[in-house]
């Protein structure tokens, strides 16, 4: 393993990268000898689709929150396209899709999607038309519904539409499809790819699914746990646009096997979780 596992972005200027350098983060009350993130370094080039994958507790969500400016850290640095994550947020250039849809239950779908335009108007960022966004995620008819009248997958699509609404420069997604059945998941993945290609944003995508990571990404960042480290960065050299045929092709499966092997060695590299007991 290279001491400095980065991807194709090494030659690019910082203004074109999400750049994390030697970042260490220990949660208050956490074990200082096993930080949630341990000297994590990564470069994510603009317009790339990058997935974070790794065993539970390896710090994927933490890293995502650091990039979103939601979480402080002990040492190192994190910059997004040359500025701080907070400055990106102030400019409404960051879209976040948390693991739960996080919709406002008292607003209907349309108003939920329009929320980013209502908040922090000073940033003066024009957004997409909510109805266009709804059509893009295939919910054109459901704008007047309330979140509790939607299925889980529909709610997740609303959250994605909301995040795309400001045409963010960075889109951060934390296991957005983890609660969906395989077929809904696949169709949403292709929908997401189409939107990403159209809007040309940079996506950091947390997932537990190898298949999902391979389907979506330009690079897959494999992490290991306790302490949270970057184990390996695997480029996915599959053509785009990706469609159902490609998703089921042998090349795809070969890539999946590579990721799975890397994940396994990452699992062995990290200490086993304290709460797992051999039966």
């Amino acid at each position, binding site marked *: 393993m290279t001491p400095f596992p980065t991807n194709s972005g090494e030659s690019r200027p910082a203004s074109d990268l999400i750049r994390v350098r030697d970042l260490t983060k220990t949660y208050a009350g956490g074990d200082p000898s096993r930080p949630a993130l341990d000297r994590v370094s990564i470069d994510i080039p603009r317009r790339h689709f990058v997935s974070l994958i790794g065993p539970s507790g390896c710090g994927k969500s933490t890293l995502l929150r650091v990039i*979103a400016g939601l979480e402080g850290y002990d040492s190192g640095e994190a910059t997004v396209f040359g500025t701080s994550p907070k400055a990106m947020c102030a400019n409404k250039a*960051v*879209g976040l899709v948390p693991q739960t849809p996080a919709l*406002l*239950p*008292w607003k209907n779908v349309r108003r939920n999607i329009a*929320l980013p335009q209502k*908040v*922090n108007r000073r940033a003066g960022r024009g957004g997409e038309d909510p109805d266009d966004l709804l059509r893009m995620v295939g919910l054109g008819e459901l704008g007047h519904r309330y979140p509790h009248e939607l299925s889980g997958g529909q709610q997740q699509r609303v959250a994605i539409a909301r995040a795309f609404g400001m045409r963010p420069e960075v889109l951060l997604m934390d296991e957005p499809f983890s609660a969906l059945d395989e077929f809904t998941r696949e169709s949403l993945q292709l929908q997401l790819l189409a939107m990403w290609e159209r809007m040309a944003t940079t996506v950091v995508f947390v997932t537990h699914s190898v298949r999902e990571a391979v389907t979506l990404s330009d690079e897959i960042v494999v992490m290991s746990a306790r302490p949270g480290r970057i184990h390996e960065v695997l480029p996915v050299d599959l053509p785009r646009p990706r469609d159902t045929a490609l998703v089921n092709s042998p090349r795809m499966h070969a890539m999946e096997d590579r990721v799975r092997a890397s994940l396994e060695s990452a699992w062995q590299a990290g200490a086993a979780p304290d709460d797992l007991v051999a039966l």
Partner: protein
Amino acid sequence: MTTQTPARTVPAPSRPAPPARRPRRRGNRSPFHPATWTPAVAVLLLLGAAWTAVAAEHPYILPELGEVGTALVTSPLVFLENAWRTLRIALLGALIGAGSAFVLALVMSEIPVVRRALMPFAVVLNVTPVVALAPPLVVAFGFGMTPKVVVTAIITFFPVLINVATGLRSVPPPVLHVFETLHASRLEVLLRLRIPSSLPYTLAALRVVLPLSIVGAVVAEFVTAGSSGGLGTVISNAASTARLDFVYSAIFCLAALGVLLLALVTAIEHRLLFWHESQRRASS
């Protein structure tokens, strides 16, 4: 012709099928279905019979139900007027108490120091029977409307304060994160997120506190009895002259007021909380 042949070959059912009686789910029944109201009516009749038996035996414990009805019917204005006075005090006190509690809860949620300074006292005072303040408040504020309103305001204050303070903090972290990545101002988070999230808690507090406000008003009226109106005064005056029919008529009026206020809160909840789990069952 030919179309009739198949009909003949089909064996006619020997007798008409019994009307499909779909087993209704418990709780889904309409309120007008006999099975819904029969048990309550049965208990009501039983209570009426017990009341009548006791009243016949011990007229100084309970008045005849007929007498109570007569009292209500012959002098409706007395009860209406005094019920209105009590209700006015209860609502005014609740408005002041709940309103100021809401504002203080907002301040506490925005300024943690204030929260840490005041919350312990709020918790203690919330479990203190503050009605007991009625007599000293009468001494302090005289016999007018002021002490009564103050008592009801104090009674309603603490439950609302504690519930709203909890509600304002009940925002799920992921939603807060979305607001944070949008760089929403504190005011925007408060107005668009925290206050709406706290509504279920606020209304739950009102559900408790509005009926309580009547308790406050009546107790205050007991203390100032003789000098002012209200159902509390009616009760204490009638009790001292052994007019039990008036006492119980006034109590029925108080019960009616309580039910009225509860219905009001329920209607508001239905309106404002259509999106909340608490309303899901009722609406479906």
